[in-house]
């Protein structure tokens, strides 16, 4: 697999052109149409001309001319964006998200928008209103979700890299299922400006790539301060962490393998042994409330969902059902055009925020969130990262969990704590099962410790 750096050198030397590079990826997209990876491939001739000009006048950067896929919930001015939902059918973005503006500055080629679980709610892309995306490694299985299309695009070589968004694991879980690197950056380092909101205190845009180096290239470009985003963290507040302590923590209970697929457990133990062989101290730590993060997540996230998705009312965006009263427009448009999972989460969110339940659920979850943050902060003051498998199992079969939402939620067990604590985390391919399905391990770092995560990820790339 060619890295961004290698492609950039070839473009610089004139061994390939942007046009010829893009043509390879467009051909791959055509050849893999059956996998239902893209919602739309954009007309890219203008972008190609801009990139070619940058090489001609010497202003090209490492991302110039590099084909990138974006998730369908990221706004690209003048282009359709729909979060794979019927309620946004026909919606055209009227401005660029911050990440797209940064990619445009670099002259990257934004090839198209990828399929996803509707409004990023799901772990398999089966909740897309436009059909499931198939895993390129085994098309009978899901690619993970919600950024399943963005993962499949890179895994099937339909793009060099891609952007996903991660609210509870939606970059890392599909990255693990498709054999890729997926980074959840620290909350606030990559702006949410122009990202369709799901859980505003949890959502982060991040890169998916074949290698740690490629993920880092994309992260470095998009991790800018955005004054239009009140949650964007100014650069001077992002504490640097550069030195490795060579100490890794594993939450108690992970080694016992309860609820883990046996091959996931075996692979995890293999990676731990390899790290010890490299001179790292890997030891169990007591993160008492780590396991509670999933329940906290499934209170806070639906609460934020029920609020954020109130804006989709059939009036301001997308289609509107023809009804006599405004009230009927709201209820019928939302009832008919939101999918099942979205409606479920809106109802759960409305429940936990409703009178009489707010204290028992929402306030209690907020208090636990603070405890989980404190626990992680304490551990990460002494260790480089917390290590877990990314997912309890490899990619599951299409249809296997679609009628059991709770079983689907449990696949987020290891990924949600980082979102709850607003810490960065990275999933790194760590091997394959006997049947060839990819597996991943996850490192959760201290806030703004992305460089540490990249360093640990490169260790895994060398020892797996």
């Amino acid at each position: 697999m060619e890295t961004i750096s290698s492609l950039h050198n070839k473009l610089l030397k004139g061994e390939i052109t942007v046009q010829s590079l893009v043509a390879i990826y467009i051909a791959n997209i055509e050849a893999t149409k059956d996998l239902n990876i893209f919602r739309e491939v954009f007309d890219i001739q203008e972008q190609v001309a801009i990139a070619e000009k940058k090489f001609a006048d010497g202003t090209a950067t490492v991302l110039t001319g590099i084909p990138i896929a974006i998730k369908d919930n990221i706004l690209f001015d003048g282009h359709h964006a729909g979060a794979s939902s019927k309620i946004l059918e026909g919606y055209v973005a009227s401005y660029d998200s911050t990440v797209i503006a940064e990619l445009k500055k670099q002259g990257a080629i934004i090839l198209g928008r990828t399929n996803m679980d509707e409004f990023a709610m799901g772990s398999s892309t089966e909740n897309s209103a436009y059909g499931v995306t198939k895993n390129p490694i085994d098309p009978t299985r899901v690619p993970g979700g919600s950024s399943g299309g963005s993962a499949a695009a890179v895994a099937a070589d339909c793009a060099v890299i891609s952007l996903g968004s991660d609210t509870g694991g939606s970059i890392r879980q599909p990255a693990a299922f498709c054999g890729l690197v997926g980074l959840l950056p620290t909350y606030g380092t990559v702006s949410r400006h122009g990202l369709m909101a799901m859980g505003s205190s949890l959502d982060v845009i991040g890169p998916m790539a074949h290698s740690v180096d490629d993920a880092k290239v994309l992260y470095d470009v998009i991790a800018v301060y955005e004054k239009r985003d009140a949650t964007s963290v100014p650069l001077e507040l992002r504490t640097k962490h550069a030195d490795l302590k060579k100490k890794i923590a594993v939450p108690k209970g992970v080694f016992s393998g309860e609820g883990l697929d046996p091959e996931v457990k075996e692979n995890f133990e293999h990676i731990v042994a390899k790290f010890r062989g490299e001179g790292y101290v890997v030891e169990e730590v007591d993160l008492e409330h780590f396991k509670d993060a999933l329940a906290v997540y499934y209170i806070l996230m639906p609460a934020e969902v029920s609020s954020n998705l109130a804006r989709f009312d059939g009036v301001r965006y997308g289609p509107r059902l023809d009804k006599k009263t405004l009230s009927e427009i709201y209820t019928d448009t939302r009832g008919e055009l939101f999918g099942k999972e979205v409606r479920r989460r809106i109802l759960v969110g409305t429940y936990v925020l409703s009178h009489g339940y707010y204290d028992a659920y929402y306030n209690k979850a907020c208090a636990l969130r603070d405890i989980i943050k404190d626990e992680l902060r304490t551990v990460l003051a002494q260790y480089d990262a917390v290590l877990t498998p990314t997912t309890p199992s490899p990619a599951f079969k299409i249809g296997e969990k679609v009628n059991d939402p709770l079983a689907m939620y449990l696949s987020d067990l290891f990924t949600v704590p980082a979102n709850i604590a607003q810490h960065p985390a990275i999933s790194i391919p760590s091997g394959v099962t006997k049947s060839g399905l990819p597996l991943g391990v996850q490192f959760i770092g201290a806030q703004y410790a992305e460089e540490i995560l990249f360093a640990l990820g490169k260790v895994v790339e060398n020892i797996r």
Partner: protein
Amino acid sequence: MEKKTLEHLATLARLRIQEDEYVELETQIGAIVSFVDQVSNLSVEQKAQSIGAVSNVARIDESVLYPDAVGLVAASTNNDGSFIKVPKIL
């Protein structure tokens, strides 16, 4: 979860739920609420809620013309170019 509760939630959330969906929703939402109920049973110390890395981010209150107001209105399927059309409410 009881149908009556779901109907109330659907009203609050402005969601039309079809009659035949309630049976499945009662089971599924009931299971989700039972799962998250473990949180309400935990004894945790309620501290002042933490704030993020940035807080009280304010901007100067000044009027700036949005560069693509036409694009914003056009995002609605029912408009006359300047206004979004909705049925009379009175």
